[in-house]
């Protein structure tokens, strides 16, 4: 009894203490608001958590603000008793949807908890354009999860000059990307060289955060003079983790670790367009003063060398002149240096080959040109010149090679006349070369036609196709008609067979009426033979018991009947009317099944 009273008193004391603690706690109520993100895109949803401390229930009224919509999400509550101190809090989540972009200040939420009315603080909130991630500023870049940077070494360039560019896309480590397209230029003042198919992938520490970095090395060139902004865009599809923060709010923070996030989070696909900051580049046109005649637009720093092989030749033998232009610059505008128009040389169209050495704008371009010496007076290959514009020196530079010594042998009888250029042929048709081209000449004019025409446009081709198609259509029609006829004839045969069977069975009925078991058995046998003969496509008179067993299902009562009719043929049996009726109905039923 004593024990019971002691326990009861303890419980009562505890309850009183708890009630007094709770009563004290209810006097200390506070409210706060926390934005999970202070900036969202117009097509995204943000959220704000309203936490009321010291209350077990609260009525929260969201504010009215033009352009933002609030809708209530989930609610969680928390109670703690530590060293006798009781505390409780309620957290209510409101989702924010934006109707238009802009900067907002979220007004205070009004909270009614118990008899108290509380308000939260005002919060700044930004809504950006759809899916666009703005080019990061120095400050925002420090916090951005993804951003694009572009760096160039030259703010002042010439039109056509190639400028090396390094483009880097930063993705916060752990962020997953489903697809990343190569960067694109925004603007029309520049052109980019083609990218390598795969960018270089590295990991970099930036402002204390680790990023996965994709790097593209390329070159750009200006196509208009003036001050231009060089800006790049990159389209990517990111897999953004949808963290289960709300469900885990009251769970041990141990589970809020990134390791568990990878397992517990789900991902949402998000298409983003990253924009780099604009680089201000001034493009100038090339100076007209001092421009050499053989300048073709090459800008950079080049070396020019020439070699010839073989150097000991006979008149009429070809010499391969190899011209190598190496260095750094816009190789697409480097053309074969022209061979001097000197008498005694016949030249052929050169071939070119470019070998990259460290990038699109670095390497060497090798031209090979076949030339033929037409005279043994020649003792050297003439000097060749190549001109380019050096942007560092801001001057045109012409590189001239030294003449290559040649030994040309040959008698005067084998000397061919000098090659005459096309323009000279037109001006002086009398001075044509005697050299005959190695070509066959057709001696008959052949068949003439007005134009080169595609075969499918010729009338005979079209006529042939149409005729064949018509024949095929007719065939198809004929096949369909034939099939229909066959179907009809099968239906007619069935109908005829049914009628025949009905007539035969009516005949059989008469034998039953007359109580003529001989006639009944003989006719039953005949009907069976005819029906099975039609069914099995064999001559009815030759149908035997073995045929019935072969073509009818096992245990068919028709087999037993046929066996009885065969036995009756040898040893006459007298059947009662009842037996005949039974056999008749079975026969009718089974034969209808067969048909």
């Amino acid at each position, binding site marked *: 009894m004593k024990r019971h009273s002691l326990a009861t008193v303890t419980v009562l004391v505890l309850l009183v203490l708890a009630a007094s603690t709770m009563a004290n706690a209810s006097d200390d109520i506070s409210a706060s608001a926390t934005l999970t993100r202070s900036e969202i895109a117009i097509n995204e949803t943000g959220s704000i958590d309203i936490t009321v401390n010291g209350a077990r229930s609260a009525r929260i009224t969201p504010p009215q603000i033009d352009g933002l919509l609030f809708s209530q999400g989930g609610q969680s509550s928390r109670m703690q008793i530590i060293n006798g101190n009781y505390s409780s809090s309620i957290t209510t989540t409101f989702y924010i949807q934006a109707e238009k972009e802009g900067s907002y200040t979220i007004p205070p939420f009004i909270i009614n908890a118990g008899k108290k009315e509380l308000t939260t603080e005002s919060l700044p909130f930004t809504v950006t354009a759809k899916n666009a991630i703005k080019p990061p500023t120095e400050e925002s870049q420090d916090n951005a999860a993804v951003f694009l940077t572009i760096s160039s070494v030259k703010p002042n360039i010439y*039109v056509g000059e190639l400028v090396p560019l390094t483009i880097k896309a930063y993705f916060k480590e752990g962020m997953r990307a489903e697809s990343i397209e190569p960067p694109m230029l925004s603007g029309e003042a520049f052109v980019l060289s083609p990218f390598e198919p795969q960018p270089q992938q590295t990991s970099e520490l930036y402002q204390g955060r680790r990023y996965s970095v994709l790097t593209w090395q390329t070159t750009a060139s200006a196509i208009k003079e003036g001050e231009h902004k060089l800006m790049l865009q990159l389209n990517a599809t990111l897999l953004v983790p949808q963290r289960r923060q709300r469900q885990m709010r009251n769970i041990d923070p141990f589970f809020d670790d990134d390791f568990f996030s990878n397992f517990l989070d789900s991902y949402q696909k998000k298409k983003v367009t990253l924009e780099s900051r604009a680089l201000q580049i001034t493009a100038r046109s090339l100076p007209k003063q001092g421009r050499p005649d053989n300048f073709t637009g090459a800008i950079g720093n080049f070396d020019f060398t020439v070699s010839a092989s073989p150097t000991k030749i006979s008149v009429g033998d070809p010499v391969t002149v190899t011209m190598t232009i190496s260095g750094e610059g816009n190789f*697409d505008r480097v053309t074969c240096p022209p061979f001097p128009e000197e008498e005694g040389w016949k030249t052929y169209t050169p071939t070119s080959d470019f070998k990259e050495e460290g990038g699109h704008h670095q390497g060497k371009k090798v031209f090979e040109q076949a030339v033929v010496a037409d005279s043994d007076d020649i003792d050297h290959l003439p000097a060749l010149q190549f001109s380019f514009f050096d942007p560092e020196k801001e001057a045109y530079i012409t590189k001239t090679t030294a003449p290559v010594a040649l030994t040309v042998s040959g008698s005067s009888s084998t000397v061919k006349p000098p090659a005459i250029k096309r323009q000279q042929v037109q001006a002086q*048709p009398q001075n*044509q070369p005697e050299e005959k081209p190695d070509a066959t000449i057709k*001696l*008959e004019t052949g068949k*003439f*036609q007005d134009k080169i025409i595609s*075969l499918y446009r010729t009338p005979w081709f079209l006529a042939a196709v149409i005729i064949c198609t018509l024949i095929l259509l007719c065939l198809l029609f004929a096949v369909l008609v034939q099939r229909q006829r066959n179907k009809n004839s099968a239906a007619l045969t069935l109908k005829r067979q049914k009628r025949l069977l009905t007539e035969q069975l009516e005949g059989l009925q008469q034998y039953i009426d007359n109580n003529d078991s001989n006639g009944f058995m003989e006719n039953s046998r005949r009907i069976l033979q005819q029906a099975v003969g039609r069914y099995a496509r064999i001559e009815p008179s030759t149908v035997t018991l073995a045929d019935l067993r072969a073509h009818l299902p096992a245990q068919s009562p028709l087999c037993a009947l046929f066996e009885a009719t065969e036995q009756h043929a040898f040893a006459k049996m007298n059947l009662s009317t009842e037996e005949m009726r039974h056999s008749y109905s079975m026969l009718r039923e089974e034969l209808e099944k067969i048909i």
Partner: protein
Amino acid sequence: MKLRLPTLTLLVLVLLQTCSAIAGNNHKINDTFQEAAEFFNQGRYDTAASEYRKIIAQNGLSAEVLHNLGNSYAAAEQNGLAILSYLRAQRLAPTDADISGELTSLRKKMGLFEEEAPLLQTLVNFFDMNQWLLIALCCYMLTTLALLLHFFFRRAKWLRPCSLVTTAALCVCLFGAWQQYIPWQSGVITAPQTTLLMSPFESAASLGIIPEGSVVFDVKYHNGYHYVQDGRGRAGWVKGNSYEKINTSSASYAAENGAD
């Protein structure tokens, strides 16, 4: 009967006149053709080319005349026009070994080597579009015939697999023709040192030089410029007078001669 005799006489006379006119015209063409060949042999290649162009303008296109025209251009070092003429001749006589030989030799001389194509493309390139279509037509006719015979002679069981084989061959040929459709619409860069431009105007930035004699595909036309793409995928604008389509008519030669 009395009326019929003068009518018949008149008809015979008209027929004779027509025949003699045709014969006379043929004689004239042959004379011009021989004359052009003579110019070529004398080394007067431009004059020979001009004569061949006249023949085409007056009488139409012929593989033989185009071949000789190509030879004249090649000898006069107008290599782009030479390749164009050979390609036109090849369209009219795809199996002519002389034309193929001259074309290959000139391309080799100019350093215009075709990149090695994958096996499927090599097989497709075995015939041009018209040849594929001709074979396809034959297959179509054979299929029709096989099905027709099979309809009337049901017992000839071999006709059914026959029609299946010809149908399969028809599909292969149609695929080949489809693959060769775009090359059939191609053209040739006829001017030396033609610059590929970014935009269709004179001062536009250059995208590089496209060699004379290159086969390119015409994508669009604007303001006297063609937007073309070469076999390696390079695309840009070229001046209208630097490019000519392979498919042509005698009327365009007549217009050219008129302009000359």
